[in-house]
C-alpha cells in the first residue's frame, strides 16, 4: 500500500478520536488535518484549497448539547485525502481544480454520512455504560478503565474503517471521471469555490454579529480597510 494512503487512513482514526472522545484540541479540524495531509502527500496547494473551504463550512457547524452535527473530523480527512489521491494520479496540473471540487464534495458527503456512524457508536456506548455500572456494583473498579479503553479503541477503529471505505469508493468511482472531464469539473470549481466560501463565512459572521450594529460596523470597516491595504500595498 502507498505509505501516503496508509498515513491518511490512520489520520482518519486520530481525527475521529480528537473530535470527541479524546481532548478535542482541534487537531481534527479540516484546516489542521488538511495541512498535515498536504505535508504527507507533498501537495500544499491542493490540500489547502480543499481544507480552507471545508474549514469555513465546518466552522459554522456547532456540536451544542446532545445534537450530533456533521462529522467534519472524518469529512476533512476524506475530503483532503480524496483530492490529494486523485491529484496524485493525474499527469496534468490542470486537473488539480477538478480534484479539489470532488474532494470538497466527497468531504461534505463523508461528514454527512458520518452522523449515523457516530450515532451508532454512541448507542453502542450505552451498552458499555450499563455493563460498566454492573461491574462497578459487583466491586470491579477496573471495569471503568476497561470501558474507557474499549470506547477509544472502537472510535479509532471506526474512524480508520470509515475513512478507508470512503477513500476507496471515492478514488475508484472518480478517478476516471477526473481524467475524462477535468475541464468541466474545473469550471464547476470556479463557480462553487467562491459560493462555498461566501456561504460559510456568512454563517460565521452571523454567529459573531448577533444582530448588533456595532459589530456589523466593525466587519464593514475591517473589510474596507483590508481591501484598501491590499490594493494600495501593490501600487
Amino acid at each position, binding site marked *: 500500500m502507498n505509505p501516503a494512503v496508509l498515513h491518511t487512513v490512520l489520520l482518519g482514526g486520530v481525527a475521529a478520536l480528537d473530535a470527541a472522545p479524546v481532548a478535542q484540541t482541534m487537531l481534527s*479540524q479540516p*484546516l489542521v488535518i488538511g495541512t498535515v495531509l498536504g505535508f504527507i502527500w507533498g501537495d500544499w496547494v491542493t490540500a489547502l484549497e480543499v481544507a480552507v473551504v471545508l474549514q469555513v463550512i465546518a466552522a459554522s457547524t456547532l456540536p451544542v448539547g446532545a445534537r450530533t452535527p456533521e462529522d467534519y473530523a472524518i469529512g476533512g480527512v476524506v475530503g483532503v485525502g480524496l483530492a490529494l489521491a486523485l491529484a496524485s494520479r493525474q499527469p496534468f496540473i490542470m486537473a488539480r481544480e477538478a480534484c479539489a471540487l470532488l474532494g470538497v464534495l466527497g468531504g461534505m458527503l463523508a461528514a454527512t454520512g458520518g452522523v449515523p456512524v457516530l450515532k451508532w457508536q454512541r448507542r453502542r456506548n*450505552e451498552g458499555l455504560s450499563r455493563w460498566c455500572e454492573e461491574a462497578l456494583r459487583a466491586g470491579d473498579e477496573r471495569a471503568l478503565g476497561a470501558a474507557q479503553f474499549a470506547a477509544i479503541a472502537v472510535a479509532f477503529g471506526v474512524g480508520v474503517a470509515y475513512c478507508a471505505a470512503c477513500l476507496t469508493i471515492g478514488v475508484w468511482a472518480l478517478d476516471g471521471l477526473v481524467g475524462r472531464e477535468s475541464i468541466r469539473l474545473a469550471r464547476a470549481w470556479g463557480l462553487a469555490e467562491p459560493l462555498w466560501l461566501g456561504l460559510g463565512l456568512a454563517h460565521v459572521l452571523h454567529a459573531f*454579529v448577533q444582530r448588533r450594529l456595532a459589530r456589523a460596523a466593525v466587519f464593514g470597516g475591517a473589510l474596507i480597510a483590508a481591501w484598501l491595504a*491590499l490594493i494600495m500595498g501593490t501600487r
Partner: protein
Amino acid sequence: MGKLTGFDVARVALRTPLLQATWNYERQQGLGWAWCFAPVLARLYPDAAERHRRLAEHTAYFNTQPTMASLALGAVAGLEERVAAGEADPATVTRAKHALGSALAALGDRMFWATLRPFAACIGILPALTGSWRGAVVMWVVYNVVHLPLRFGGVSWGYRRGPEVLDPVMRHGFERLVRGLSVLGAAAVGVAIAAILAPGGEPRTVAFQASLLGGLGLGLLTAIRARPSPTQWALGLGALCLAAGWWR
C-alpha cells in the same frame, strides 16, 4: 477519612481529556465523569464497598461543555471531601453536579463552540489563503491557548473555589471574553473576505467576486434558520455548480 492532595487534583486534571470517551445518549458524560473522578474517591474512601457505591453513583447522567467540565470536577471534588468527612449530605453532590453542568454548558457552548472555534478558524484561514501551512498552526494555537489551560487548570481552580466557582465575577469575565472575541471575529471575517477578493492585491475576476457576494447573501439569509444546515446548503450549491459547469 483522607484529605485530597495536590497530586490527586492533578490526577483528575490529567484524566479530563477522556471525559467524553464513552459519551452515550443515556448517561452522556456520566461514565467519563466517574473515570475522571476515581482518584478523588480512591483517596477519600479507603473502604472498598463504600468507594464502589460512590463510584457507581457518579456514573449517573451528566453533561456539560467538555472543557468547562474541569471546573465542575474540581468543585465537586471539594464537596465530596466534605461528604466523606460527614459534613455534607451525598445529595448535595448530585444537586451541585446538575446545577454546575447546566450553567457551565450554557456559558461553555457559547464561548468554545459558538465563538472561540469559529474565531480560531477565521484567524487560521488568513495565512492558509496565501498557501501557507502556518494557518493550521495559528488556528491550533489560538484555540488551545484558552482551551488547554482551562481544561487542565480548571480542576484545581474549581477545587479552590468550590460550588461558587461560577460566581458573577467569573461569569462576567467569560462574557467579556465572548464579546471581545465576537468583535475581533467579525473583523477577521472582513479581512478574510478582502483577502479572498483581492489575494496579494490583485482583484479576482468580476464573476468570482459576484459569486462570493452571492454566497455571502445566501449565507446571511439561511443563517437565520437552523435547518437546512450549512453543509446541506453547501451540498445543494455544489450540485448546482456541477450541473452549471457540465452544461455551460
